[in-house]
Protein backbone atom coordinates (compact mmCIF):
# COMPACT_ATOMS: atom_id res chain seq x y z
CA UNK A 1 0.00 0.00 0.00
CA UNK A 2 2.91 2.36 0.51
CA UNK A 3 4.31 1.84 -2.96
CA UNK A 4 4.39 5.06 -4.93
CA UNK A 5 4.82 3.48 -8.34
CA UNK A 6 2.27 4.06 -11.04
CA UNK A 7 2.64 1.94 -14.14
CA UNK A 8 0.67 3.05 -17.18
CA UNK A 9 0.19 0.90 -20.27
CA UNK A 10 -1.73 2.01 -23.32
CA UNK A 11 -3.23 -0.28 -25.94
CA UNK A 12 -5.98 -0.26 -28.59
CA UNK A 13 -9.14 -2.35 -28.44
CA UNK A 14 -11.46 -1.98 -31.41
CA UNK A 15 -11.88 1.79 -31.81
CA UNK A 16 -11.01 2.60 -28.22
CA UNK A 17 -7.76 3.38 -26.44
CA UNK A 18 -7.33 1.48 -23.19
CA UNK A 19 -5.19 3.10 -20.51
CA UNK A 20 -4.33 0.46 -17.92
CA UNK A 21 -3.20 1.73 -14.52
CA UNK A 22 -1.26 -0.34 -12.01
CA UNK A 23 -0.11 0.69 -8.55
CA UNK A 24 -0.96 4.01 -6.97
CA UNK A 25 -2.47 7.19 -8.40
CA UNK A 26 -1.98 9.52 -5.48
CA UNK A 27 -0.43 12.90 -4.76
CA UNK A 28 2.97 12.21 -6.29
CA UNK A 29 1.74 10.19 -9.29
CA UNK A 30 -1.04 12.48 -10.53
CA UNK A 31 1.43 14.48 -12.63
CA UNK A 32 2.51 11.37 -14.52
CA UNK A 33 -1.10 10.42 -15.14
CA UNK A 34 -1.89 13.95 -16.34
CA UNK A 35 1.02 13.81 -18.79
CA UNK A 36 -0.29 10.53 -20.21
CA UNK A 37 -3.72 12.01 -20.86
CA UNK A 38 -2.21 15.20 -22.29
CA UNK A 39 -0.31 13.05 -24.77
CA UNK A 40 -3.40 11.00 -25.62
CA UNK A 41 -5.47 14.12 -26.18
CA UNK A 42 -2.76 15.59 -28.39
CA UNK A 43 -3.02 12.56 -30.66
CA UNK A 44 -6.76 13.08 -30.97
CA UNK A 45 -7.90 9.77 -29.47
CA UNK A 46 -11.69 9.89 -29.12
CA UNK A 47 -12.79 6.99 -26.92
CA UNK A 48 -10.72 6.11 -23.89
CA UNK A 49 -11.25 3.37 -21.31
CA UNK A 50 -9.26 3.57 -18.10
CA UNK A 51 -8.62 0.02 -16.90
CA UNK A 52 -8.51 0.25 -13.10
CA UNK A 53 -8.08 -3.48 -12.43
CA UNK A 54 -4.47 -3.04 -11.32
CA UNK A 55 -4.97 0.19 -9.41
CA UNK A 56 -4.50 -0.28 -5.67
CA UNK A 57 -4.85 3.33 -4.58
CA UNK A 58 -6.51 6.48 -5.87
CA UNK A 59 -6.69 9.86 -4.15
CA UNK A 60 -8.48 13.08 -5.01
CA UNK A 61 -5.38 14.14 -6.99
CA UNK A 62 -5.74 11.13 -9.28
CA UNK A 63 -9.51 11.59 -9.44
CA UNK A 64 -8.97 15.19 -10.54
CA UNK A 65 -6.89 14.00 -13.47
CA UNK A 66 -9.63 11.59 -14.54
CA UNK A 67 -12.25 14.35 -14.32
CA UNK A 68 -10.14 16.74 -16.41
CA UNK A 69 -9.57 14.00 -19.00
CA UNK A 70 -13.30 13.30 -19.12
CA UNK A 71 -14.02 16.99 -19.69
CA UNK A 72 -11.30 17.42 -22.32
CA UNK A 73 -12.47 14.38 -24.28
CA UNK A 74 -16.10 15.42 -24.06
CA UNK A 75 -15.22 18.90 -25.33
CA UNK A 76 -13.63 17.28 -28.39
CA UNK A 77 -16.55 14.95 -29.02
CA UNK A 78 -14.84 11.98 -27.37
CA UNK A 79 -15.65 9.87 -24.33
CA UNK A 80 -13.98 8.50 -21.21
CA UNK A 81 -15.07 5.41 -19.30
CA UNK A 82 -13.71 3.68 -16.22
CA UNK A 83 -13.60 -0.10 -15.90
CA UNK A 84 -12.78 -2.98 -13.57
CA UNK A 85 -12.17 -1.03 -10.38
CA UNK A 86 -11.19 -3.06 -7.32
CA UNK A 87 -13.37 -2.76 -4.23
CA UNK A 88 -11.59 0.14 -2.44
CA UNK A 89 -11.32 2.22 -5.61
CA UNK A 90 -14.86 1.30 -6.62
CA UNK A 91 -16.10 2.52 -3.23
CA UNK A 92 -14.23 5.77 -3.73
CA UNK A 93 -15.96 6.26 -7.07
CA UNK A 94 -19.30 5.84 -5.29
CA UNK A 95 -18.57 8.07 -2.29
CA UNK A 96 -17.40 10.90 -4.54
CA UNK A 97 -20.28 10.32 -7.01
CA UNK A 98 -17.76 10.11 -9.85
CA UNK A 99 -19.83 7.28 -11.31
CA UNK A 100 -22.62 9.83 -11.82
CA UNK A 101 -20.21 11.85 -13.96
CA UNK A 102 -18.14 9.23 -15.78
CA UNK A 103 -19.50 5.84 -16.91
CA UNK A 104 -18.11 2.96 -14.83
CA UNK A 105 -18.16 -0.59 -16.23
CA UNK A 106 -17.45 -4.00 -14.71
CA UNK A 107 -14.70 -4.75 -17.21
CA UNK A 108 -12.88 -3.26 -20.18
CA UNK A 109 -14.78 -5.36 -22.69
CA UNK A 110 -18.13 -3.96 -21.48
CA UNK A 111 -16.76 -0.42 -21.67
CA UNK A 112 -15.52 -0.86 -25.23
CA UNK A 113 -18.82 -2.45 -26.26
CA UNK A 114 -20.73 0.45 -24.70
CA UNK A 115 -18.74 2.88 -26.84
CA UNK A 116 -19.83 0.95 -29.92
CA UNK A 117 -23.46 0.95 -28.81
CA UNK A 118 -23.31 4.65 -28.08
CA UNK A 119 -22.11 5.52 -31.56
CA UNK A 120 -24.59 3.25 -33.41
Amino acid sequence: MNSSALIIETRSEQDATVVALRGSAGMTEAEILQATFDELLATGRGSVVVDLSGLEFLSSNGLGVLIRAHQALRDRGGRLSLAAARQPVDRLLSITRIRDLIPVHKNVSDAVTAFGAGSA
Partner: protein
Amino acid sequence: MKVPGHFGVRDDDLETLVVPNDLRHAKSAEDQILEQIGSCCYEPDEVFAIKLALEEALTNAVKHGNRNDPGKQISIRFYIDDNRVIIMVRDQGPGFVPEQVPDPTAEENLERPNGRGLMLMHAYMTSVQYNEAGNEVWMLKEKR
Protein backbone atom coordinates in the same frame (compact mmCIF):
# COMPACT_ATOMS: atom_id res chain seq x y z
CA MET B 1 -3.53 22.29 19.90
CA LYS B 2 -3.10 19.09 21.90
CA VAL B 3 -4.55 15.76 20.89
CA PRO B 4 -8.36 15.85 21.36
CA GLY B 5 -9.35 14.16 24.62
CA HIS B 6 -11.77 11.73 23.03
CA PHE B 7 -8.98 10.30 20.84
CA GLY B 8 -7.91 8.41 23.97
CA VAL B 9 -4.15 8.97 24.14
CA ARG B 10 -1.80 11.38 25.91
CA ASP B 11 -0.12 14.13 23.94
CA ASP B 12 3.30 12.82 25.00
CA ASP B 13 2.59 9.50 23.26
CA LEU B 14 2.64 11.04 19.78
CA GLU B 15 5.63 11.02 17.43
CA THR B 16 6.51 14.13 15.45
CA LEU B 17 7.79 14.72 11.91
CA VAL B 18 8.53 18.07 10.29
CA VAL B 19 9.06 18.13 6.54
CA PRO B 20 9.66 20.82 3.90
CA ASN B 21 6.57 21.96 2.06
CA ASP B 22 6.52 19.79 -1.04
CA LEU B 23 4.69 16.65 -2.05
CA ARG B 24 7.82 14.47 -2.31
CA HIS B 25 8.79 15.11 1.31
CA ALA B 26 5.17 14.75 2.38
CA LYS B 27 5.06 11.42 0.59
CA SER B 28 8.19 10.30 2.40
CA ALA B 29 6.54 11.07 5.75
CA GLU B 30 3.43 9.21 4.61
CA ASP B 31 5.51 6.14 3.73
CA GLN B 32 7.13 6.22 7.17
CA ILE B 33 3.74 6.28 8.89
CA LEU B 34 2.28 3.57 6.66
CA GLU B 35 5.24 1.34 7.35
CA GLN B 36 4.45 1.47 11.06
CA ILE B 37 0.77 0.84 10.37
CA GLY B 38 1.80 -2.16 8.28
CA SER B 39 3.30 -3.78 11.37
CA CYS B 40 -0.09 -3.63 13.14
CA CYS B 41 -3.11 -5.73 12.31
CA TYR B 42 -5.21 -3.38 10.19
CA GLU B 43 -7.31 -4.71 7.31
CA PRO B 44 -6.39 -3.61 3.76
CA ASP B 45 -9.48 -1.39 3.50
CA GLU B 46 -8.52 0.31 6.78
CA VAL B 47 -5.00 0.96 5.50
CA PHE B 48 -6.50 2.34 2.27
CA ALA B 49 -8.69 4.67 4.35
CA ILE B 50 -5.82 5.94 6.50
CA LYS B 51 -3.55 6.43 3.51
CA LEU B 52 -6.27 8.31 1.65
CA ALA B 53 -7.07 10.63 4.56
CA LEU B 54 -3.38 11.27 5.20
CA GLU B 55 -2.73 12.08 1.54
CA GLU B 56 -5.68 14.44 1.44
CA ALA B 57 -4.53 16.24 4.58
CA LEU B 58 -0.96 16.51 3.30
CA THR B 59 -2.06 17.70 -0.14
CA ASN B 60 -4.28 20.34 1.45
CA ALA B 61 -1.40 21.49 3.67
CA VAL B 62 1.13 21.76 0.82
CA LYS B 63 -1.12 23.25 -1.84
CA HIS B 64 -3.80 25.21 -0.02
CA GLY B 65 -2.43 25.90 3.47
CA ASN B 66 1.16 26.69 2.55
CA ARG B 67 0.27 27.62 -1.06
CA ASN B 68 3.19 25.60 -2.47
CA ASP B 69 5.65 27.91 -0.68
CA PRO B 70 8.97 25.97 -0.54
CA GLY B 71 10.09 28.10 2.43
CA LYS B 72 7.34 26.69 4.64
CA GLN B 73 7.05 23.43 6.52
CA ILE B 74 4.47 20.84 7.45
CA SER B 75 4.27 19.35 10.91
CA ILE B 76 2.93 15.86 11.34
CA ARG B 77 2.20 14.10 14.61
CA PHE B 78 1.00 10.53 14.86
CA TYR B 79 0.20 7.66 17.17
CA ILE B 80 -0.29 4.06 16.10
CA ASP B 81 -1.30 0.99 18.05
CA ASP B 82 -3.40 -2.09 17.32
CA ASN B 83 -6.65 -0.28 18.16
CA ARG B 84 -6.30 3.19 16.73
CA VAL B 85 -4.32 5.46 14.44
CA ILE B 86 -4.15 9.18 15.20
CA ILE B 87 -2.65 11.66 12.74
CA MET B 88 -2.27 15.43 12.95
CA VAL B 89 -1.20 17.58 10.00
CA ARG B 90 -0.45 21.28 10.46
CA ASP B 91 0.59 23.86 7.88
CA GLN B 92 1.86 27.42 8.29
CA GLY B 93 -0.96 29.05 6.39
CA PRO B 94 -3.72 31.31 7.72
CA GLY B 95 -6.22 28.45 7.92
CA PHE B 96 -9.73 28.14 6.57
CA VAL B 97 -13.29 27.53 7.70
CA PRO B 98 -14.15 23.88 6.96
CA GLU B 99 -17.88 24.60 7.03
CA GLN B 100 -17.46 26.98 4.10
CA VAL B 101 -16.01 24.33 1.77
CA PRO B 102 -18.60 23.47 -0.89
CA ASP B 103 -20.02 19.94 -0.86
CA PRO B 104 -18.17 18.17 -3.72
CA THR B 105 -20.98 15.63 -4.07
CA ALA B 106 -23.58 18.31 -4.83
CA GLU B 107 -24.77 18.09 -8.42
CA GLU B 108 -23.34 21.48 -9.34
CA ASN B 109 -19.87 20.55 -8.02
CA LEU B 110 -19.40 17.09 -9.55
CA GLU B 111 -17.44 18.49 -12.50
CA ARG B 112 -14.92 20.24 -10.27
CA PRO B 113 -11.56 18.47 -10.52
CA ASN B 114 -10.66 19.34 -6.93
CA GLY B 115 -12.26 20.10 -3.55
CA ARG B 116 -12.86 16.49 -2.41
CA GLY B 117 -10.11 16.16 0.20
CA LEU B 118 -12.01 17.30 3.25
CA MET B 119 -15.06 15.21 2.40
CA LEU B 120 -12.89 12.11 1.92
CA MET B 121 -11.16 12.59 5.28
CA HIS B 122 -14.56 12.67 6.97
CA ALA B 123 -15.87 9.72 4.96
CA TYR B 124 -12.95 7.41 5.70
CA MET B 125 -11.88 8.32 9.23
CA THR B 126 -13.67 7.76 12.55
CA SER B 127 -13.24 11.37 13.64
CA VAL B 128 -11.85 14.54 12.04
CA GLN B 129 -11.34 17.76 13.97
CA TYR B 130 -9.78 21.12 13.05
CA ASN B 131 -8.20 23.67 15.35
CA GLU B 132 -9.83 27.07 15.60
CA ALA B 133 -7.56 28.68 13.01
CA GLY B 134 -8.19 25.89 10.50
CA ASN B 135 -4.54 25.11 9.76
CA GLU B 136 -4.31 21.95 11.88
CA VAL B 137 -6.35 18.80 11.37
CA TRP B 138 -6.59 15.87 13.78
CA MET B 139 -7.81 12.51 12.47
CA LEU B 140 -8.66 9.31 14.32
CA LYS B 141 -9.16 5.87 12.81
CA GLU B 142 -10.42 3.22 15.20
CA LYS B 143 -9.94 -0.40 14.30
CA ARG B 144 -13.17 -2.29 13.68
